[in-house]
Each structure stands twice: as C-alpha cells, then as structure tokens.
C-alpha cells in the first residue's frame, strides 16, 4: 500500500487514537505566559482517582499504546504515582510533561524504577533569562535541578521539551548541546495561540525569517530531534521535515482535559472542538462516534488555499492556530510561510478572536 493511502486512512480516523494527551490537572505551580490550557488553579470538578482509573482501563481495552500526561503540573496530583502505576499495569506507556519542580532525589529514583515511562522536562530558553521570561522566575533553575536528579538516579534518556519562540530560535544549537550533555533527547514544538498563548502569541511567535531558520535547522537535525509533527506548515518551504505531515486532531490524536472533557487536540480547548465527556458516555463512544470527530474525519476543503501550489506540502497548517487568531479554518495558517497568513490576519477585527472555554489562571491578589 502506498504511503499516500496510509495518510488517507489516518485522515479518516483510526479505531483508537495512536496517542492521546491527558491533562491531569489545571493546577500548576507556574504561570507560563503561553500556557495552552491557561492552567493555575485546580478545577473542583477534576476527575477522582477512581474516575481516572476507569479511563485508564478503557484505554487499555482500546489498546492505546501510550499517553502523554500533562497539565497544569501533573505531579501536583496526590495520586500521580498511583495513576502512573495503573497505566503501567494496564500496559499503557506514559510520557509525561513536567516543569520539574517536584522531581527531587527521591521522586527521581521512584520514576527511574518504572517501566514504560518517558519524562519531558519543559524549558523555553537555554539560559535562565530567556526561559524565565516565559515560564517565571526560578523555573530554569528548578528544571536543571530536576535533570540533575534524573541523571543521578540513572533514569536514562529523558526528553527536554522546548516551545520555539522568537526569543529562543537562536538557541536551537544550545538546546541540542544541553540535551546531549545530559544524554537526553531534544523535542521542539510549535508555539500555538491557545490558552494564555492567545494573549502572548503576537510577541512570542517566530518571524518569517526565523521560520526559515527553524525549517533549515530541522532539515539538518530532524532525524535526531522530536517535533510531535508540529511544524508541518513549514513544509511549504521545500524539503519535507520528517513526520506524518497531517493534522491528527480527532483522527489519530485527541485531548482529555482534567474534568474529562474530550477535545480534538491539546491546542483547542474551546466549546467548538469539544467532542464529549468521558464521564457521560465513556471515552470509546466519544472517539468512535461523536459528531465532531466524525466531521473532522471527512475530506477537508482547501478553501482559500486551493489555488496555492503548496497546499499538498503544508495541508493548510494548524487548525488551532487559525481558530484562535480568528482566521477561517479553510484558509491559510497565520504563520503561512508564503505570507498569505499575515495578510489574512490584518483583516481580522480584534473582537472576533475566540476566547478559550475555560481559564484557570491564578488571579493577581489585589493589595
């Protein structure tokens, strides 16, 4: 079967997701200015341990091979290790994203003793100044301390996860060097205008020249760097970056949020992309027959991009990036490398940009 047929199958949706992101909690010790899920304060409706176990049992029955756990900061949950152990017992691999603040020597040893576990430590700068501007004061030092604990505990090859921004594009080599020093795997992903990122995207997203730099860097280093397939919009620049080159939302991936709502992907926490809730119908029914996911699996229209020769390469880019910048979903990505996004953006009135469904940011305390 040719590769294009395989892509066609994936566009029509798989029997179960290839992988799935599960934000365990909206609670977070940090307040990153680009947080996809606007995390900060715990939601009182957060799934209980028993409810979380029921989800894991359903994922086992669906043969979901691995899940990406995130948040918020997932390690804040008191039953965090119980959830990891249940996943392991169910044969579900776990990759979890953390800011590292709770990885002390003891927790590092505990994590190192588990199978089927990958850890992604998030940093968004190769030095404290660049990182802390986005993730908050002291967050770089905490992430480095976590990496040291993982190394000392012989955890093995953990991942360092970076959201590429205007401020850190020039540090891609430095990130790679840092990862190599720890024997770690570098993972870089695209900044989305989602969650609090909607408010900071204008100042953080890479410039057109920087996008070309990212593309060149990925062509040179792509085989050794993970991207979560998030940069396929850059493929319109020429050579293809390794990866599936398609939007997997509702087709091969999805998101379960801390209260059990299921969204098409981690970047679209908004009513319009909510397919259902695991407590109401179970995850399987949402994945296989929700109205939203069914419609996402139908052939898409290239819309305004139909006349552009690069549509096959970039697939029109990222649905979430378009949605939260107020652009139509069947038109160019706001970061379209051919420049069609910029002109489309200039025509979007500020007030029509959709707001995320929920905001769990901590409120500033007034004096």
């Amino acid at each position: 079967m040719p590769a294009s047929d395989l892509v066609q199958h994936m566009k029509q949706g798989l029997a179960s997701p290839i992988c799935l992101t599960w934000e365990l909690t909206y609670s977070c010790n940090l307040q990153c200015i680009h947080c996809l899920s606007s995390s900060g304060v715990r939601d009182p409706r957060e799934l209980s341990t028993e409810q979380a176990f029921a989800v894991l049992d359903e994922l086992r029955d669906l043969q979901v091979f691995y899940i990406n756990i995130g948040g918020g900061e997932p390690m804040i949950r008191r039953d965090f290790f119980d959830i990891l152990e249940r996943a392991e017992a169910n044969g579900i691999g776990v990759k979890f994203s953390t800011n590292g603040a709770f990885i002390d020597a003891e927790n590092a040893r505990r994590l190192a003793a588990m199978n089927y576990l990958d850890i992604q430590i998030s940093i968004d700068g190769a030095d404290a100044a660049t990182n802390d501007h986005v993730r908050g004061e002291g967050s770089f030092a905490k992430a480095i301390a976590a990496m040291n604990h993982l190394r000392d505990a012989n955890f093995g090859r953990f991942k360092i996860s970076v959201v590429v921004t205007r401020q850190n594009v020039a540090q891609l080599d430095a990130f790679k060097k840092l990862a190599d020093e720890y024997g770690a795997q570098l993972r870089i992903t695209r900044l989305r205008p989602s969650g609090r990122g909607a408010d900071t995207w204008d100042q953080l997203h890479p410039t057109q020249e920087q996008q070309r730099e990212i593309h060149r860097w990925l062509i040179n280093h792509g085989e050794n760097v993970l991207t979560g397939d998030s940069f396929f919009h850059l493929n319109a620049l020429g050579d293809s970056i390794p990866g599936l080159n398609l939007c997997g939302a509702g087709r091969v991936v999805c998101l379960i949020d801390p209260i059990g709502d299921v969204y098409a992907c981690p970047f679209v926490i908004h009513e319009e992309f909510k397919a259902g809730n695991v407590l109401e119908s179970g995850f399987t029914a949402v994945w296989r027959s929700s109205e939203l996911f069914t419609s996402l699996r139908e052939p898409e229209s290239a819309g305004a991009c139909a006349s552009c020769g690069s549509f096959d390469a970039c697939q029109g880019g990222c649905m979430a990036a378009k949605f939260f910048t107020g652009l139509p979903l069947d038109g160019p990505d706001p970061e379209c490398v051919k420049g069609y996004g910029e002109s489309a953006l200039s025509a979007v009135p500020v007030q029509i940009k959709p707001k995320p469904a929920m905001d769990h940011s901590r409120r500033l305390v007034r004096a």
Partner: protein
Amino acid sequence: MSITLESACELHPQVALRPEEFGALAYHYGNRRLIFLKHPDVVAVVKTLGEHDTLASALSAQGIEANRWPSFLAALNQLETSEIVRAR
C-alpha cells in the same frame, strides 16, 4: 537479509499489535517505535510466525501464493530491523 524462508521467527515479545482497517499498528514498548503494518495478510503472517518452524510454513498456512513470497520476505526483514519480529 538475515531472515530467509527457512528462518524460524516470532513477533517480538515487547511488541503489541492493534488491528486497524489498513492492517495493524505495531508498538514496541522497548524502543518506543510505532510501525504501520500496511496489509492484513502481513498482519496475519506476523501474528502466526511463532507457531511455525519456518517462514515458508507460516506463509503457506496463511494461503499466501508463492509469487508474493519475495515481497513478504522483504517486509519481514524490514520488520526485523525495527525489532517488530525476530529470529528465534
């Protein structure tokens, strides 16, 4: 090629297979690699490799015609490289 028609093989014990319309997804829990098995016949052969003394016997048992054997041999060697199947 290290796997021949005479090889005794098996699905790698760290690999899980999940049926999909196009064939199956194979996930290796050790190297964390995800591989697409793009034909139901390949899936059927891979699943039953362990029950046969040779690859040829596994292919015959699944009713795979001899003119398709070379492509199956190539596919299985690829799967061996990805550690989805192994010699035993």
